[in-house]
């Protein structure tokens, strides 16, 4: 009983380690192809469009609503201490350091990550990747790396847009609706927020961009070439990305505080 349990635990540990190793090797392979891909920048631009520009609407809408909720909740909380004027700094710091990068990464995994994974999985299932191999074209270089880079480049920009719109959302609720003084809102924000806070958010979203894109292209590229396999790959993309983003968020926050 105990022996079989230990064996099972060891087994799953082995599987997890194996997956980690496979991810690392794939990542190294992608990095090796990056310089050559940058020479054909048109391909990357196309993918920045797919991953970034097409996610813009959902990111902006979500940013607005998250900011408005933050304005409402923050006002309610700060009013108890009689310091509603701090709403600006509270909302800005919360958005820049946490909610901007994290929520953007989660939305990215749901919108762009699944699109990437299913696209690559479908290319695998319909032999498109094998056909490229046969045309002496490396599918990793031609298809995977541009998509990876597109995701990596889009994420920090999306997060910045999210945070900015979120701040305006908080301002909308706090100042226009709840009557916090506009000057206080902005001046407190500006005195509290430091350059490092913005950078913390940028660093986070860069890390999230790399990991979310890597997970999406890995799962898509290695999808089982059936309809079911493609579906599974997209599900795995969302699940793994979300967990990894939250885990990394904790680690990064602890490292940068």
């Amino acid at each position, binding site marked *: 009983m105990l022996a079989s349990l230990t064996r099972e635990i060891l087994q799953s540990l082995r599987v997890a380690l194996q997956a980690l190793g496979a991810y690392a090797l794939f990542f190294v392979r992608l990095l090796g192809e990056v310089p050559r891909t940058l020479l054909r920048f048109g391909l990357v631009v196309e993918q920045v469009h797919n991953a970034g520009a097409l996610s813009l609407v959902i990111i902006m809408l979500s940013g607005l609503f998250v900011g408005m909720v933050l304005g409402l909740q923050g006002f309610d909380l700060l009013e108890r201490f009689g310091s509603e004027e701090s709403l600006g700094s509270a909302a800005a710091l919360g958005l820049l350091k946490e909610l901007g990068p994290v929520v953007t990464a989660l939305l990215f995994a749901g919108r762009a990550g699944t699109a990437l994974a299913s696209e690559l999985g479908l*290319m695998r299932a*319909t032999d*498109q990747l094998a*056909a490229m*191999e046969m*045309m*002496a*074209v490396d599918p990793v270089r031609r298809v995977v790396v541009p998509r990876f880079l597109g995701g990596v480049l889009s994420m920090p920009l999306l997060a910045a847009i999210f945070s900015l719109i979120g701040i305006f959302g908080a301002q909308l609720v706090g100042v226009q609706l709840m009557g916090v003084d506009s000057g206080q809102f902005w001046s407190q924000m500006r005195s509290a927020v430091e350059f490092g806070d913005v950078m913390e958010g940028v660093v986070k979203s860069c890390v999230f961009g790399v990991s979310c894109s890597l997970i999406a292209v890995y799962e898509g590229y290695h999808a089982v070439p059936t309809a079911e396999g493609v579906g599974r790959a997209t599900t795995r993309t969302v699940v793994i990305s979300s967990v990894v983003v939250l885990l990394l968020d904790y680690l990064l926050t602890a490292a940068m505080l």
Partner: protein
Amino acid sequence: MRVRGLHYSFAQRAIFTGIDLDIDRGSVTAVMGPSGTGKTTLLRLLTGQLQADRGVIEVEGEDVAKLSRAGIYRMRRRMGMLFQNGALLTDLDVYENVAFPLREHTRLPERLLRHVVLAKLQAVGLRGAYRLMPAELSGGMARRVAMARAIVMDPQLLIYDEPFVGLDPISLGVVLRLIRRLNDTLGLTSIVVSHDVHDLSTVADSCYLLSGGGVIASGPPGTLATDTREDVRQFMHGLPDGPVPFHYPAPEYVEQLRQLR
């Protein structure tokens, strides 16, 4: 192309136990066999997508197993391959699909590229469809576009993987005719993998019949059809029972009915 003593196994299951093939320049060779005998696997071995356990595969005198990755890519530029469903790139239109290998491997000026692409599309009768997306094509058209793409680099060897699956009789006739015509007019060597015995025998110069990990019969289609061996006869004439049994292995019928599950 020469294959000698090819062995390959996957997941502890032996798929090939000693296969010899000889494919002559300029001929159309059919590779036939029941489902699951590893016909597609054989193609992957021939094109260097898989590594054989044992045996020699020579393409134009070069041993595929000894080629580096770059060498395999160089070899593949002289090969064209047609996948079961065409495997067109779904985000590019017909024109760009055919142009794809040229754009990847050459720096032809746009005008010249256009000439080449349109000529190849004309050869398969789809010059008028160059603006369509793959999703708008019928199965037969998709396969013809894939043929145009496969010959755009002027290969010496063209490989077809199950080119007849799911085609209506007209499209099938077109594809069949094209295989022969492209082979003769472009001076290619063609390998066609299929289990459509009758269709293939009209175009093939010689046939190989695979079963149980080895070649069980070979020769021109005519001699294969008159072969008297049981397993060859069953496949060539589509007999329901024979060495490949109709019944899945089961206990005695009456015995099983008596048991309460």
